[in-house]
């Protein structure tokens, strides 16, 4: 390889260094804090209100949208370059050591290995090799047999080679996630549409300075409803029934699809999420009124509308709650009696247990409320998402693999001795050495048993 000029080498060493990794990771962590303390994406006015003179500095440093600021993206970019450079630089060596392992344990290699033992056997070198191979094949992967420089027989066996790549799978996963996010921001979009019950929309409203987006199909909201937990005003479910319409026809399988929070509707690459709701117009209240003389009348009105009564009094709906104690919906009514008294009264769906309206000359009951809602749907196209999920999966598998799988290797060198042969065992594990020590000892015993050898030739001390 031609020697690189010095400045390039320094740059490369800088970009490949693990110190840079630790520094960027800690810097990313430290700077990210800012965006959690400073509220993001408010208006200039709001920043002025909260930070006074410092608002300008804050906006100058882009701290009002810091995760999209140039300097934060640059820091992330440095992190990615570091990741790629470092992985690419190390990968070839790892690949070489995995694909072309040293088959013969020479002196230098032996010195570097921490697990060693020697066995004596009474059989010949060849016979020992033949006996040991099946055992090694069972416990490790098939051993490779070579002849060393001094005509000794060398057996090399290993397992879980792929464990060496756990870290690189993890790193690749991070690139997948970042790529997925980029694809999403380039080709995806995020919008919002509201549909009144019964209406159909065919386009998404325009975002600033852009034309509305044609859906290419129609989306109808058949119904929207909120349900509540029994006896409380806590919402249980927001539910829209949506129907997809293509060329005037309802699409089979996409009619009256219930869409609730956590269960969006997907159609033609778009996803519709239940996001908000509201009243499209003032609800219409249907009331039953029993007059003081016992006559019953039914009437209907919207809030604020004055409902005249036969005796000269009038009613007006002021407020409404869908869950009044455990009596279902109830409306707060302002009663204006014939003699000019103003009284509050409640009209509930069910008979009030104690008459809460004893002050009112009229007995009120709420028959039903006609509400016309609109449903608010978040609409997204997110083409990068599958890549992000793949990245997450690989990130977890890769890091689990990197931490818990160990590449284990074993070298046996068999030499002739006066009484037969001597088997020198050496092993290494690229992580979790204490656990490997046990494996190694057990394997030594099994090999000895296989050779019917006496294992008393003291094991060499593990350094």
């Amino acid at each position, binding site marked *: 390889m031609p020697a690189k000029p010095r400045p390039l080498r320094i740059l490369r060493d800088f970009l490949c260094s693990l110190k840079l990794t630790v520094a960027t990771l800690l810097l990313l962590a430290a700077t990210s804090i800012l965006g959690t303390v400073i509220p993001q994406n408010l208006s200039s006015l709001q920043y002025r209100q909260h930070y006074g003179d410092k608002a300008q500095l804050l906006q100058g440093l882009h701290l009002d949208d810091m995760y999209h600021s140039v300097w934060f993206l640059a820091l992330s970019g440095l992190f990615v370059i570091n990741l790629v450079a470092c992985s690419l630089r190390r990968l070839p060596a790892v690949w070489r050591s995995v694909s072309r392992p040293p088959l013969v344990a020479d002196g230098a290699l032996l010195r570097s290995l921490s697990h060693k033992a020697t066995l004596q056997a009474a059989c010949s070198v060849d016979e020992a090799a033949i006996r040991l191979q099946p055992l090694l094949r069972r416990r490790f992967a098939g051993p490779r047999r070579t002849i060393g420089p001094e005509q000794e027989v060398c057996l090399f066996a290993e397992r879980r080679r792929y464990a060496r790549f756990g870290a690189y799978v993890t790193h690749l996963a991070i690139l997948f996630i970042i790529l997925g996010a980029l694809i999403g921001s380039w080709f995806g979009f995020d919008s919002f549409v509201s549909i009144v019950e019964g209406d159909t929309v065919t386009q998404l409203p325009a975002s600033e300075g852009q034309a509305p987006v044609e859906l290419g199909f129609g989306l109808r909201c058949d119904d929207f409803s909120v349900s509540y937990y029994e006896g409380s005003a806590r919402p*249980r479910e927001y539910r829209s029934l949506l129907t997809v319409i293509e060329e005037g026809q309802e699409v089979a399988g996409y009619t009256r699809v219930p869409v609730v929070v956590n269960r969006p509707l997907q159609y033609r690459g778009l996803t519709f999420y239940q996001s908000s709701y509201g009243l499209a117009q003032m609800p219409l209240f249907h009331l039953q009124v029993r007059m003081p003389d016992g006559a019953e009348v039914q009437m209907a009105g919207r809030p604020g509308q004055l409902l005249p009564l036969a005796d000269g009094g009038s009613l007006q709906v002021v407020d409404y709650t869908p869950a009044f104690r455990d009596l279902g919906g109830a409306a707060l009514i302002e009663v204006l009696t014939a003699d000019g008294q103003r009284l509050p009264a409640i009209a509930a769906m069910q008979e009030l247990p104690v008459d809460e309206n004893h002050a009112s000359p009229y007995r009120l009951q709420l028959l039903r409320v006609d509400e016309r809602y609109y449903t608010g749907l978040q609409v997204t196209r997110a083409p990068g998402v599958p890549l992000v999920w793949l990245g997450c999966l690989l990130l977890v598998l890769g890091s689990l693999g990197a931490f818990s799988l160990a590449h284990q290797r074993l070298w046996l060198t068999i030499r002739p001795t006066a009484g037969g042969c001597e088997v020198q065992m050496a092993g290494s594990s690229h992580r979790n050495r204490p656990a490997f020590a046990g494996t190694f000892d057990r394997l030594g015993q099994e090999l000895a048993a296989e050779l019917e050898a006496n294992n008393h030739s003291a094991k060499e001390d593990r350094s």
Partner: protein
Amino acid sequence: MSSAQLFNLATAVYFVAMVLLALVLLLRNRRLGSLAIVTVWCGFVAHSAAIGLRWLESYRLPGAIGHVPLSNLYESVIFFAWSIVLIYLIIDLRLRQRAVGAFVVPFALLAMCWAQLRGNDAIEPLVPALQSNWLTYHVVTCFLGYAAFAVGCAVSIMYLVKGARSASKPADTDDLLPSLEVLDALNYKAIMIGFPFLTLGIGTGAAWANYAWGTYWSWDPKETWSLIVWFIYAAFLHARLTRGWSGRRAAWLSILGFVATLFCYLGVNLLLSGLHSYGGG
């Protein structure tokens, strides 16, 4: 017996276990260690039964509001304590380092006491956004990660205590604390358990956000803090691959990581939400 009483019982048993574990260290009595660990197991069984019972209780309430007890701060603190004990017991089964408990069990005890004293233990129905299986996956994975980091932090404190002690009087070797090398390795091991769980926790959280709100990442304070924690532990893992970053520095980094974890878990809700409440969100 109600789940609340069982939680009290578990807390009391953990307290006894902590006292026993402290005695193990003070009296240097190994046999007491077995008694202590049996006590921790008893507390753990009561704790698990209480969580199960609370789950059942939620289904017995009117209005079909039953759900896995992982939906509010009280329930999550209790699960956090449970995870810490679980991770400790697993490590104890494999490595038999009794003395570690004297530093780990107080974390679980503290969490339990906090839940009992400050938590709101009413079982409440789930708002629509929380009605998702992803909630369970998300909380379980996050808290197993947090718990492993708590164990890492406890071991790191032990490391620093032991390091300081053996520097001042080197003769004092038989204090039943594991050796510095073992503590350092334990710290690493705890973080190796915690890191994939945290990764899964962030991933399941993103998946859930994607189903519920149509965006898997929105840089809200909770998400961002989980990423901060993740960055710190990633830095920890890589620092170990460079020269000179095991031992004391690794211990400090692990403690820093756990402080950030706690902030992510509690601080964001208790401190930052106030700051953001005016943001019109």
